[in-house]
Structure formats: C-alpha cells, structure tokens
C-alpha cells in the first residue's frame, strides 16, 4: 500500500487549538434551536438532506423547521432565490412567527449564494424580524464559537417584556393541576378560582434584582428549580436561564437583567459584548456540578448582587446535606481510578463544552477518585503537545493519554486498571466488551441537590462494576 506519511504530517499541522470536536455551524444552530419553545421558524437554505444533521424526534419545535429543498438544477445554476423567497413569504403569511432564523449550508456556501439579501428584503416587506447567517460545515468551527454566534444573534433580536422564571414555573404547575383536575372530574369552580387567585403577580418591577444564568447544566425538567428557589429566597429574580430552559420569550427578555452569570466566559466573546452593550454586568461562575463548584456558584452570585448572607443562609441546608452524603462516599472511592474521555462530543451542549470539557472533573475529584484524562485525537507527538498546552492553559495538570478513536478506548482503559469510565455513549459496546462501567458525560446531576443523587449514582455504578 502507498505511504501516506507526508499527508498525515500535513494533517498534524491543522491541529486545533481547542480540545472540543469541530462542528458544522448549521447543524449546531439547528440542534440548539429545536427544543426552544416559542413562535419562531428556522429555515435551512440548502438541499433537503442538510436538515439531517440534527435530530427531528427530540425537541419541542421540530415542526417549526423548514428547508428550501434546493434541487440539483437550482444549486448548479445558482437560481435559489425563488424557493427561498417563496418559503419566507409563505411562513410570514401563514404562520406569522415572531422571528425567523435562516441558516446557510455547504452547497449554498460553495456556490457563493448571496441569500442574505433575499432574507433582508422579505423581512422588510413583511415586518417580521428575519436573520440570515452564513452557516455551514466548511469552516470547521469550534462548537463554542457556534454557540457564541447563535447566542449573540438571539440576544439581539427585538426585545420582549420581562419574564419571571419562578412565576412561569408556578403558572405551569398550577395550570397543569387545574387541567388535570378538570380532566379527572374533580374540583369545583370556587376551588379553581381560589387556586388561580393564589398565584402571585409576576415580578416585572424594573427595580428588582434580575439575573441571567448562562451555560447552566441541563436538568430533567429543562428548568432549574434549585437556583430559582435558592436565589428567590434571597430576593434575586432569575430573569432567564440560557440556553437550556430558555424560550424565545426569555431570549427576547435577556436585556432586562442587571447581571449575567456565565459558566466559562471565554466561550462567548461576541455574546458577552452584546450583553455588555445592554449595560449588563458579566460575572464568571463555575459549572455548578459537585458540592464545591455549586457552593462557589451561589457565593459568587450572592456577592455580586450584594446579598452574600441571604444567599448563604438559603443554601446552607442543602449544602450541609450534600456535604454529609459526600463524606460518606469518599472513603469508599479512595484509591479508585476514573478515566474521563474528552473531545468525543459534538452535542453542542454549553455545559459539556465549558472549560474544554473539564467542567465535571472537579466533581469526580470531590468523590475521591484519581482522575486520568483520555483525549480523543491523533496520537502523534505534535498533537499530544497541542493537547498538553490546551490543558495547561486551563490550569489542568492531570495525567492524560491520547486515543485514536472509540474502537481503541476499551482496550486502553482495560490496561489502565480503571474502576469507571466517563465518556460518550458511542463507546458503550467497547467498554462493555472489557466489562468497564460507563457513566456518560453529563450523567451527574447539577447543583447542591444533585450531589446526593450523584453519590447514589456512583455507588450503584461501582457496585455494578464489582459484580
């Protein structure tokens, strides 16, 4: 067979300066918008198969997506305008969304399609805000840069009224209860009215302390009840949680906060410029997974809003419970090794991407594990050096190895004597083959209340491994 050494040497020079997987910005933005509730439309301007770089069966807004369905003839002749114009005009006429996002694709990028002029023209004619972004897979952007671009776009769309996440949650719960009671035939009219009257007025007082939380870990509910409750107890209103847990309404309300608390501010230079332009103060907070990081998260917010004592008092019971749970586990875990795999994900999740994927590491160290990192990438020396520099720049001095791909990870970890692996779900077969328990990335529950769940989870997983 031919010798490809020269080719691979050239490849090595393309080394990324980031640990994350590269991404297609169209794929990433489509994926990021699909679970966003709200009256909007996403138009993928390209051949129809370009809609397949994201799931259609997970997320609440798949039915709000469109494709211009460019044919071979349209692409090769460059006559894409009629389809795009028709699509946008029909959306405006029949759906009247609050906002339309038009995303480019590789085929239209290759032919140099100036589609943003069409979008601007239809937006002007219809009065509906429409934004065209020249997204594609050609640039091999980082996922963080994609999120930064999307967030800065969403934060700049026309403002809506303020939202109150705590109030929205109360309203949703009350509405569900009333509906289900009516459905089941229970409750009288006076009961219903009494319950509706019990709902407080939403906090839209401009003088209230309103904060945005950005880059938070996902929760089962998609909302974040713990920070809402903890900060609410300290008279701090959560204006919005971004991106998970956000709606179009909360993006449109993002400018109403006085402070934004951001996990890994280095990820979002453009977005944070937009927030600062809206006269917000931006603060760095750790990814709140694990006791220490969660406590630091709350303490940072408390100090910034001038309510350190109130916040400390609010979190004290949960922090104590978490501390007790953790203390019980640490002796069981001592001396055990966990392998944490990096650079395996293209899931566009802000919490996975934070701190180059190192966001959860502190929680595993807190459990008492000896942590070793496994970075997916080219095994050559130059690549290893680039990864070493990337980790050092993050202040990470943990031992690490580089592995070529999923097929080889099981073998490598078996040789390392690990008790647990934290990696992408795509390696489940490889780890099962060597009988090594797997916890997928993002398996840990966030915040103080998550610590107790996580301790139980670790016990379960280690017990499985011991069988």
């Amino acid at each position, binding site marked *: *067979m*031919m010798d490809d050494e020269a*080719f691979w040497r050239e*490849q090595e020079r393309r080394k990324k300066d980031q640990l994350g997987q590269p*991404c*297609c910005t169209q*794929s990433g933005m489509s994926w990021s918008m699909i679970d966003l*509730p709200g009256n909007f439309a996403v138009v993928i301007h390209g*051949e*129809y*198969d*370009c*809609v*397949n*770089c*994201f*799931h*259609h*069966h*997970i997320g*609440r*807004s*798949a*039915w709000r997506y*469109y*494709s211009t*369905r*460019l*044919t*071979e003839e349209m*692409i090769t002749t460059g006559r894409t305008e009629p389809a795009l114009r*028709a*699509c946008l005009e*029909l*959306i405006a006429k029949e759906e009247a969304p609050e906002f339309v996002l038009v995303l480019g*694709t*590789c*085929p239209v990028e*290759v*032919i140099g399609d100036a589609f943003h002029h069409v979008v601007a023209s239809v937006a002007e004619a219809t009065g509906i805000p429409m934004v065209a972004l020249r997204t*594609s*897979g*050609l*640039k*091999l952007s980082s996922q963080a840069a994609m999120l930064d671009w999307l967030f800065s776009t969403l934060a700049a769309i026309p403002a809506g009224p303020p939202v109150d996440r705590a109030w929205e949650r109360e309203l949703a719960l009350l509405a569900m209860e009333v*509906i*289900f009671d009516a*459905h*089941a*035939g229970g409750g009288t009219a006076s009961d219903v009215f009494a319950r509706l009257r019990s709902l407080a007025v939403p906090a839209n007082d401009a003088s209230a302390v309103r904060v945005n939380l950005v880059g938070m870990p996902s929760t089962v509910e998609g909302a974040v009840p713990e920070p809402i409750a903890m900060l609410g107890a300290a008279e701090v209103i959560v204006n919005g949680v971004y991106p998970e847990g956000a709606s179009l309404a909360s993006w449109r309300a993002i400018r109403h906060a006085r402070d934004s608390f951001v996990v890994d501010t280095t990820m979002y230079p453009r977005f944070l410029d937009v927030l600062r332009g809206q006269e917000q103060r931006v603060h760095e907070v750790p990814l709140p997974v694990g006791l220490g990081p969660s406590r630091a998260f709350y303490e940072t917010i408390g100090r910034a809003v001038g309510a350190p004592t109130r916040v400390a008092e609010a979190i004290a019971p949960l922090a104590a419970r978490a501390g007790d749970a953790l203390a019980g586990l640490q002796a069981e875990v001592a001396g055990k090794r966990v392998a944490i795999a990096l650079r395996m994900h*293209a899931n566009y999740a802000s919490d996975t991407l934070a701190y180059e994927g190192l966001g959860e590491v502190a929680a595993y160290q807190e459990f008492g594990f000896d942590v070793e990192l496994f970075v997916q990438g080219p095994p050559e020396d130059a690549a290893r050096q680039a990864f070493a520099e990337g980790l050092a720049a993050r202040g990470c001095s943990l031992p690490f190895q580089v592995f*070529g*791909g*999923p*097929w080889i990870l099981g073998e490598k970890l078996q040789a390392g004597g690990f008790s647990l692996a934290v990696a992408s*779900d*795509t*390696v*489940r*077969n490889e780890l099962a083959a060597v009988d090594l328990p797997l916890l997928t990335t993002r398996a840990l529950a966030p915040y103080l209340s998550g610590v107790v769940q996580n301790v139980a989870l670790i016990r379960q997983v280690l017990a499985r491994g011991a069988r």
Partner: protein
Amino acid sequence: MTFDLEHFRLKSLDLGQLTGASMALHAIPDAYFLKHTGVGCKHKTVTQFGTHDWAKGVAAHEGWTEVGDAALIRGSGRRVGPYARSAYQRHKPSILAISSVTFLDLTGDDLPDVVAGLDAELPCEVMLLKVPGFEGDLYSGYLTTLVEVCRRMDWSVAPDRAQEVAVLGYLWDRYEGDHQGNQLQLKALLQAIGLSLGPVLFSGTPYTALRDAPRSKTVLCLPYAEPKRKTLQRVCKRDLVSVDLPIGRRFTSQFLRVVASAAGVAGATVEGLIARQETALGERLGTMVDHLRGQSVAVFADLPLLAGTMATLEELGIRVVIAGIRGRTLGKAADLEAALARVGAAVPAGCQVVDQPSLARVRALCADAIAAGTLDGVLGSATDLNALGTLPASTPLRRSAGTASRTTGPFKLEIGFPCRDHHCAYAMPFMGYMGVSIFVQRLLTAPRLWDTGVATRV
C-alpha cells in the same frame, strides 16, 4: 414554479440517502463506511442511530475525511486515499464503502477514479456509493447500497442450494430483538414448508457470509428492494420473487403462498400449515382483541410497513382514519391501495391518506381528530410522536361530547425508524404469525399521550 408551505416544512421522514447507506452498512458488521463529507454530515449517520439502536453503535465502523474549506480549495479527492488506507489498516473490513456529498461533487473531483484505484490497491472490496442529498430518501440510499453489494457478488455460480431462500431488501435498522425476532420468524416460516433461510441482505450478517446468496435457488425481493427490481435482476441474473412483508395474518399467509409457489412446494402443504397457524393465532389472541376492536387510529409509516400495519389493524377490528406515507421512493397512495388489495384488505372509507406529510401536518391532523374525539391511538416513528408531544393536554377537552375512553388522549405506539422509547431486549418480531401476537401485546399496553388516570375502556 409555485410552492405551498407544506413543500418546505420538515417532513415526517426527511432522512436522506446518506442515512440509508449508513443503515445498510450498519447491518453488515464487517463493513466500514468512509464518508467523504463535511463535519455536519457525520450527524446524518452516527447520530441518527443513537436513540434507535441501543444494542450496537454505529460510530466504531464509520469515519470521515475531515473536509474543510482549505481542503475543498486544494481538491478534496486527495484526502480519500490516506483515510481509506488508514481505515483498512485499523479495522480490516471485508468491504469498504465510500460516499460523497453534493457540495464536494460540485467541485468536479474524480472520486469514482479514486475509489476504483483503492479497490485495486486494498485487500478488501472498495465500493463507491452515490447518495446525493437533493434527491431520494433513506430507502433509496439503503437500496443503492444493496445494489452495489450485490454487484460485488459472483452471481455466475450455479444455485446449488435447491431448498434455500435468499432475501433482498430486508430493512435491518438495529441489532435489537425486533429484528432478531423477525429473522427467527422468517426462518421458522420457511422451515415449516421444507425450505431454509439463506443470506438476508441485510440482517446483521457479515459480508463474507452474504456472498453465499447466489447459491440460493430462490431469491426474494422485498418491497424495500422493489424500486430497483429490474436493476437487481440484471445484476443477479435471476428471476427475483416479489413478495410483501409478512406483517399481519394475511400478509404472512400470502408470503408463505408466494414463496412456496416460487420454490415448488406443494400447495396442500402450505395451505395446511396456514390453516393451522391462523387457527392457533386466533386461539392465542382469543378475547384479548375485544379490548381493541372498534378503536380508531392514525398510522404514519413507510409504505411496506404501513400496508402491513393497516392490514393487521383491519384484522383486529381497528379502524385507520389517518394514514401517512413516510418517504418519497417506496410508493404513494395508489401503491398502498394496491398492496392492501393483494390480501383483500382496503383503505377504510373516509380514511385520509397523506403522502410524505410534514410534522406540522401530522400534528394538525391528529390534533383535529383528538379534538373531534375520533382518535384512540397514533402509531408512528418517534419523529411523528414527538411532534404530538407539545399538543396541549386540553385538546381532548375541547370537544363538546364523547365517551370518557378518549379523554386521556390517544395511545401512542412507536413503529418504524427512528424509535426513541421502544426497545427490544428479547425477540419481539413484528413479522410472522407471532408478530401479530406481539403487536397486540404492544397495543394493549401502549402508553397514552397524556395519562390522567381516567379509566380507558374496560
């Protein structure tokens, strides 16, 4: 050219040929799929199977050539060779498939020549798959792969296995118990009439074993292969036997009759078996199906699966009020009617048949039927059912009158691709006579779209 909004909307099935090729190659464990694509196109393959196949991942036997803008400018075709050689050295596949995408095809690189060179150079078979993203669908991509794999086989050999039946066009999308169960059903059905099951393309069988297909005397062409039947006949140099999927009582019996006739099995043998099996099925289900009879449902599926499911529902006394045909290449409403007619079934009067519905249309049709109190269940892929997930739980309350049985919303049953919640840890066929029993079991225990605890039918 005039358009309506439905043309542009995201469809119930918008998966393209690249996904179909990946599905086919996933079903060949000793194959490797090298995608000469952009970075986002990776999601068209690996990611689409992430929630569907919990038994086996796709990522370990797929790779991509990491094309970016710089590579595009300098000519991306040169990248294929090193990646293909590296993939061979690491994975040692029996067959290596290479595909491209539209934006790379636009540059005019001579990929066929590159692949032909690799086929001559590497110890494994190397084939090019043309799966452009502006035409076709999941099924045509699967079928393109099937045709190319068949081309690689030696069909000049004499079919020396007189009792063996090979199958072309089995849609194997995961290594879970539904397909394992189907294979056991096919095997048992054939054995019961004195035949044996040969290689099934595709079925999780390695390419090295599939290559024995030309030795089978009888070669079946399932509906997923039917659009390329003439091409396959030329490639295989055989008269292929067209047969519908054995889903439901009548389609299973018809399957036996068609195969038996083609293989020269005595009619009396087959009819005796059918009579026994149909009687046994009736006894097994007994009065259980009384709890289903009279219900009205919507079904969204690709045409072969839709035909089988609708025939089965008719046998169970369940009325289909909305039938959505997913995909572009397996047929339209007229083909559905023709398929049902082959077993004496029919599209029920008043049933809305919609070709390639959008998710918005799936949602609107079902919402209207729920509000009107005329829908007891929805059967469809996770994509279809997900589109219903955001319907307000008040939808069934909006109708003015009706029976209490429908106020919890319709039941939902995942069928087809992809699944999110339906997984099979043991043999759970949807084909053959046993497949009917499993289907009834699933219907009886299906979850509801909203479950408030209000009693359903008793």
